[in-house]
């Protein structure tokens, strides 16, 4: 009977095109608004590295101004480290299985051909970055500890840049020019875009930005005096007696990110103790004047600490859900008008032997079909909404996509909303007394 009901539903929708279009539009608007905000929320709040998010920990040390208000939670502590603390931890023998120290920077890429040079974001990091974060390689692989220690001019580039510079060929062994220095390509990473970009959550939109297309050893970037491109906070002036960049590196300015891989609670506990001891040691030389506030946060905790999903996003989701409810209520009214107009046909079918259940099912299928159409319309509107979000806000480009899962979700939500809206009208029409309506048909 389902295919029969579906055919009848389509005929009924065509019979009342304006009313049906209004219902589809009402649902579509509600779904479009809801899916726009929900997609942003869903992708922001997603787990960017689900298989190991519980063993990767971001490190916070509180080197901040002692005159600032006391710290109550990780949210009150700077999300980044100073270069000197990160470097000290990186070179130390710690209980961590692996560690990585890094910062975001940039350079001018000079192509081999006549193509004009262009600016490119660069991640200055250590060789451990790629294994810790399971970065997929298309060609080659990461550089080595020896390269880090030798401050070698090596680079891993992204697939997109490889396409631009080398037409997608295997570029391992070739060189790229960054500023005035050539770097030996050791690996090309495949498409890799964790959303959010958890490893660089510094309290700005950068957690939602593109992954970099160039990765170089951090020591090499420091030698090249590439300054940070990202949130850089200082609470006291660098030492003016030192050269400018050296003074910056030795200052209390925070601009680097630090992660540790801690694959057991015991290791995590030991690492936390290690950090506390490190800070105590620093206190002895006159740093870290605030109370002991070291924090380690796994990936999802880190998303929370950095408020990747902001309260505004949650409020928007709630508001759009209320809007969807209003649309559903409007649809109830429209469905009532439509179904009450079908009284004659319902009465005829009842006379021909249709039970109330048959009538209920038939009209529920029609409501479901309207829901599916509303879902498709809503998906289109959500796509437009996300385009608008993309054009209005920097760094949201990875949130602005609709995949099959989102399409199915939109259609499912719309169908469920339509069925919810249609339950009462469908029930009412199935309870119509046929006798009185037959005579008047």
């Amino acid at each position: 009977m389902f295919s029969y009901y579906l055919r009848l539903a389509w005929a009924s929708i065509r019979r009342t095109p304006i009313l049906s279009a209004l219902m589809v539009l009402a649902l579509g608007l509600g779904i479009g608004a809801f899916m726009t905000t929900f997609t942003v929320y869903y992708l922001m709040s997603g787990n960017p590295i689900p298989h190991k998010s519980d063993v990767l920990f971001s490190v916070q040390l509180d080197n901040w101004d002692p005159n600032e208000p006391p710290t109550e939670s990780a949210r009150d502590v700077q999300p980044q480290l100073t270069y000197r603390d990160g470097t000290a931890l990186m070179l130390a023998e710690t209980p961590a299985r692996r560690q990585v120290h890094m910062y975001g920077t940039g350079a001018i890429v000079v192509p081999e051909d006549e193509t004009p040079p262009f600016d490119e974001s660069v991640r200055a990091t250590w060789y451990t970055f790629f294994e810790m974060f399971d970065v997929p390689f298309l060609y080659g692989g990461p550089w080595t500890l020896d390269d880090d220690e030798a401050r070698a001019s090596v680079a891993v580039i992204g697939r997109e840049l490889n396409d631009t510079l080398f037409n997608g060929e295997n570029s391992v062994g070739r060189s790229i020019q960054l500023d005035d220095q050539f770097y030996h390509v050791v690996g090309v990473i495949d498409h890799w875009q964790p959303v959010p970009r958890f490893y660089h959550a510094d309290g700005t939109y950068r957690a939602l930005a593109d992954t970099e297309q160039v990765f170089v050893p951090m020591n090499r970037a420091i030698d090249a005096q590439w300054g940070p491109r990202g949130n850089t906070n200082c609470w006291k002036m660098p030492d003016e007696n030192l050269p400018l960049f050296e003074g910056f590196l030795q200052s209390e300015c925070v601009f680097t990110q630090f992660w540790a891989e801690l694959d057991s609670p015991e290791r995590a506990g030991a690492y936390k103790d290690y950090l506390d001891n490190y800070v105590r040691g620093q206190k002895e030389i006159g740093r870290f004047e605030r109370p002991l506030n070291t924090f380690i946060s796994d990936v999802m905790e880190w998303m929370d600490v950095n408020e990747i999903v902001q309260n505004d996003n949650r409020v928007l989701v709630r508001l759009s859900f209320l809007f969807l409810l209003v649309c559903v209520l409007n649809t109830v009214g429209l469905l009532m008008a439509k179904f009450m107009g079908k009284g004659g046909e319902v009465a005829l079918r009842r006379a021909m032997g249709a039970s109330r259940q048959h009538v209920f099912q038939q009209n529920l299928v029609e409501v479901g079909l309207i829901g599916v159409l509303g879902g498709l319309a809503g998906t289109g509107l959500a796509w437009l909404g996300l385009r608008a979000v993309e054009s209005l806000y920097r760094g949201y480009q990875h949130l602005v996509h609709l995949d099959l899962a989102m399409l199915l979700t939109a259609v499912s939500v719309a169908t469920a909303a339509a069925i919810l809206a249609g339950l009462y009208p469908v029930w009412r029409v199935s309870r119509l007394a046929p006798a009185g309506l037959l005579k008047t048909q």
Partner: protein
Amino acid sequence: MLEMSQISKVYRTELVETHALRELDLHVEEGEFVAVTGPSGSGKTTFLNIAGLLESPSSGIYRLDGEDVSTLNDARRSRIRNQKVGFIFQSFNLIPDLNLADNVDVPLRYRGWSGAERRRAVGDMLDRVGLGSRSNYLPSQLSGGQQQRVAIARALAGKPRFLLADEPTGNLDSEMADAVMGLLEDINAEGTTIVMVTHDPDLARRAHRNIHILDGHASDVPLAPVAEIAAFPAQEAARV
């Protein structure tokens, strides 16, 4: 086949109580062709609705094929209506955006027949009413008489034993009405019981038996010249 005993039907609103049928007694044998006459508002349509299980009586007992159907639930009543009863209406009541075959197919859909069975039954019935070649036409492409023939095909497609016709020729000119009556007579001759509500004394005379309903009471009327039927005083009629 149809036995109504002390059937009453009362419609109540907050202010008004209307007695559509009052302790109506009626017995229709299998194979009969019964014409039901009576003035407007006398209860003919209510009688037909109760006979076709579209309404339940307020009191009394209604047996169809020996089964008491006065208190059955909706699903059971619908099943009996689908299997045993066919309806023909004055205004044809065809679904305008379904073609003839799909209109005739409507009751069969609720019968649970296979697609092949339904197609065969629909084809047979449309052939029977002379519209087999127009199965893909829409009702709006047919004359009134042809539409009524489609409605008859629809009523008979499921081979019901009991046909209820409410003014089946009321919207037709005399020539078309005569053709439709001829079709009903043929159907009756093949064994289908027919109860037909009509205002037309000429048509009533073509039935085997006339029932007159007045003020909710039914009385048998002797088959007589038209003028006598029209003038037959209800209060003198014997209860059936």
